[in-house]
């Protein structure tokens, strides 16, 4: 077999990889199932050995955090501790059905309850739900809570959500999905909320404001109390996007800043593995006055017992079946337990130190639009000595040096943005080598920009024709065969 094929191209009639015991009851006649039966099931036929080689070989074409440094701004690509995987696989914690009687899952409910307490402590919120499956679903649950709050007060006219133009793409999309209107306001030059712009769009239709703090440029929003005051005075609620929580654990809390609702991205802040794009989990925290709107069930403690509480008449309902991405929440619990309160603070402190350490040296070679103390990340904007070299070329060339590129072209308010977030789990040595690479690339950009433009050279494939992909729309193996014919 070739190691560079699709699994379908390795299929040979008659091969198989499964094993099942012999059927020990009478076999049914499929025609008794009351539905048309398919003649042919078109799935690959491979042996177990073929299957393993296939996946091992394609896996080696991936970059991963266990292989190298991922300075992706806004993504918090920290090391994924191995014990979290072991804990999540303990049979007594994982081989459980969501509809088991509550008396048979007291260990899991205790774990989830304890996790809620930890998250409330880190955030300064009063009550948590663990139900949302990801940050974006957490945002949605949060905005639904805000909408329900206004509805119950008879404030049906409160339909406007304000967002700074530096917001993550999920924020505006979530606003639409929750049935709100969007009002975008320009940020001031360091990405903070422009108080005058904010005041100008406040009116009686205000439902709320969504914000990250530190903001998308990695800067702490200094006048946050003024912002929350303005929103609250106008009858609105304020939502905290927890994407940047890794900057402030044990140093500041959204609840103390005046936020009413927030979500965590546990795959960022609490080290659960990204898995190539998921699964994550997006727990949501609220202040006490919003508890009645949380999705059901709440996980609560009654005496010595842990219970699922469905008795919440004003609840928004459910955003996801069952109780959340439990397997990921177990990893979150495991991580927080290995860190403890002081460990989480140390993580944020070192994440911030690592970011400032990078920024201080890189600003000599790269354009740094805002030169201020940053938090866990900062944004560069091209090479000083080679202003015409694109961020894309720099990013692609970094791959040849063995690094994953930073987040590029975000936030949208900085041209040629390159957003760098080192996290606390990178050593100084790694950071130094990363900066050596970026400086070498800056030199190449002056001497031989074509070299960058054609990069990468050493990756499993080189630059890909994305326009062709969108035009040809070959999305399956069958499409591929049709294209050939």
């Amino acid at each position, binding site marked *: 077999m070739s190691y560079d094929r699709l699994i379908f191209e390795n299929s040979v009639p008659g091969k198989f990889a499964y094993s099942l015991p012999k059927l020990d009851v009478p076999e049914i006649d499929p025609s*008794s199932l009351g539905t048309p039966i398919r003649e042919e099931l078109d799935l690959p036929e491979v042996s177990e050995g073929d299957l393993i080689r296939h996946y091992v070989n394609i896996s080696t074409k991936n970059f991963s955090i266990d292989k190298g440094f991922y300075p992706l701004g806004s993504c918090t690509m920290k090391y994924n501790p191995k014990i979290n995987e072991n804990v999540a696989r303990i049979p*007594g914690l994982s081989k459980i059905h969501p509809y088991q009687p509550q008396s048979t899952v007291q260990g899991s409910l*205790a774990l989830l309850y304890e996790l809620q307490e930890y998250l409330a402590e880190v955030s300064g919120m009063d009550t948590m739900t663990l139900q949302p499956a990801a940050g974006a679903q957490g945002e949605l649950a949060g905005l639904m809570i805000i909408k329900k709050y206004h509805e119950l007060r008879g404030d049906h006219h409160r339909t406007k959500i304000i967002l700074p133009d530096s917001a993550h793409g999920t924020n505006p999309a979530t606003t639409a999905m929750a049935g709100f209107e969007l009002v975008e306001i320009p940020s001031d030059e360091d990405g903070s909320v422009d108080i005058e712009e904010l005041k100008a769009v406040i009116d009686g239709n205000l439902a709320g404001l969504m914000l990250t703090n530190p903001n998308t440029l990695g800067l702490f929003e200094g006048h946050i109390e003024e912002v929350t005051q303005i929103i609250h005075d106008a009858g609105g609620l304020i939502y905290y996007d927890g994407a940047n929580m890794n900057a402030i654990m044990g140093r500041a809390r959204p609840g103390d800043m005046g936020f009413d609702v927030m979500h965590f991205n546990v795959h960022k802040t609490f080290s659960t593995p990204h898995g190539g794009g998921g699964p994550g989990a997006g727990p949501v925290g609220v202040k006490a006055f919003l508890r009645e709107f949380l999705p059901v069930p709440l996980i609560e403690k009654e005496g010595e017992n842990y219970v699922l509480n469905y008795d919440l008449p004003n609840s928004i309902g459910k955003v996801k079946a069952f109780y959340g991405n439990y397997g990921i929440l177990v990893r979150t619990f495991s991580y927080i337990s290995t860190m403890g309160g002081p460990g989480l603070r140390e993580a944020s402190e070192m994440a911030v130190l690592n970011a400032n350490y990078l920024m201080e040296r890189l600003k000599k070679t790269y354009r740094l639009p805002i030169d201020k103390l940053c938090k866990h990340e900062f944004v560069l904007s091209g090479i000083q000595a080679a202003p015409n070299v694109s961020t894309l070329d720099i990013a692609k060339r970094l791959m040849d040096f063995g690094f994953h590129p930073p987040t590029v072209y975000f936030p949208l308010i900085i041209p040629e943005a390159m957003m760098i977030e080192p996290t606390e789990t990178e050593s100084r040595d790694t950071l130094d080598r990363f900066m050596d690479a970026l400086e070498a690339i800056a030199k190449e950009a002056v001497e031989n920009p074509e070299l960058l433009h054609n990069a990468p050279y050493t990756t499993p494939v080189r630059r890909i024709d994305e326009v062709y992909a969108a035009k040809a729309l070959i999305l399956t193996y069958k499409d591929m065969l049709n294209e050939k014919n």
Partner: protein
Amino acid sequence: MHRYIPNNGALLQEMLEKIGLSSMDDLFVDIPQELQFKGELNIPGALSEMELLEKATKLSKKNKSTDDLTCFLGGGVYDHFVPLVIDHIISRSEFYTSYTPYQPEVSQGTLQAIFEYQSLITQLTGMEVSNASMYDGSNAAIEAAFLSIASKRKSNILLVSQGVHPEVLEVIKTYCHFRQIEVRVVPLNDQGRTDLQKAQELMEAGVASIMVQNPNFFGVVEDIDSVVKFSKDHKIMSIDYVDPISLGLFEAPGDQGVDVVVADGQSLGNGMNYGGPYLGVMAMRKKDVRKMPGRVAGLSKDVDGKRAFVLTLQAREQHIRRFKATSNICSNQALNMLVASIYLNTMGKKGLREVAIQSASKAAYLKKALLETGHFENVFSGPNFKEFTLRYKGDVDALLKGLEEDGFLGGLNLNRFGRDGEILIAVTEKRSKAEMDAYVDAVRRLS
């Protein structure tokens, strides 16, 4: 000082000096004094590996797992066998510690896995396109419902069968409430199938789609041909929420004329994990691809002409289209999607059919044996696949409690969904004749 944080002690001081600061506090001077959190977060720790393993094991012993109790519970989550190769493959760091494949040159493993998953799902469902997965079945269902609304001008009503999983229905109602979309629930007939005559009465111009689950929540196999005919007659979309295992036997919904197939992919090799993470499956016709939410990978080539995969059609997605995006979804369940692909490749052409046959045969065996005890009545006359609903003549709670003491998760008491006296029982290929006979004996003893 923590084992996951490499810079400490003298190194840390040196780094601070390099940036002209003298203490960690200097890094946080931009946070207003009154907002600075003083003191320690009240979170116990930091536990050593030994301590955490001990704590977690202790918690696990307060659970009873499906190693302790033989599982006849279903209701959307099933105790199918998980082939051992799966955990070996998904435990590779290259898969589970990689990021979203936005930089395709260093993400070909994940991208090829997505392309293969899309191919497998389209072959299984008889559809033309699939996305790279969504959060779970409930999420795929609501996204499909929204897609139908977006596809028909001035539509604002959904028909959803009573046979759709009650928690999925609740998610649909939650999302729809905030978008002023009306959900009309189509009741079941005596067979336990979606009553299309009642659906007819609920029709009006604003209806965008009809959604059924097959086999439905109560275990009854639906008449998909009639649902498709109904949807075509009324020019609305048909959405079929399937059990992927059933497609080892059932005609592909795409070949039956269904417009959108959705599913929860748990049963494709994902452990039960107390409700998640699983994956949401979504597949449809190519003509609708630009309205499809979620990630999609496509085939392309690199500058040297080498085959390569890349995320495509990103113009639909939130990070590009923002307020006008088709959905706010930003991730996929990549690792669970990988699990589903490995499962389908492991079972292959013959194995998936065998799982379906075995599950259905065993369910038929158990249903017959339970009815023969005389303590149950059949609730619906329609055909079943691997799950069925019975009415118990005694106290369901007491029966289930007794079964639990005898070592069984005996089934789902449907009183939680307002159906007193009814119990939903699921049987997978994992259940042996001996286990089922023991279960029936226990029922006799307890009744």
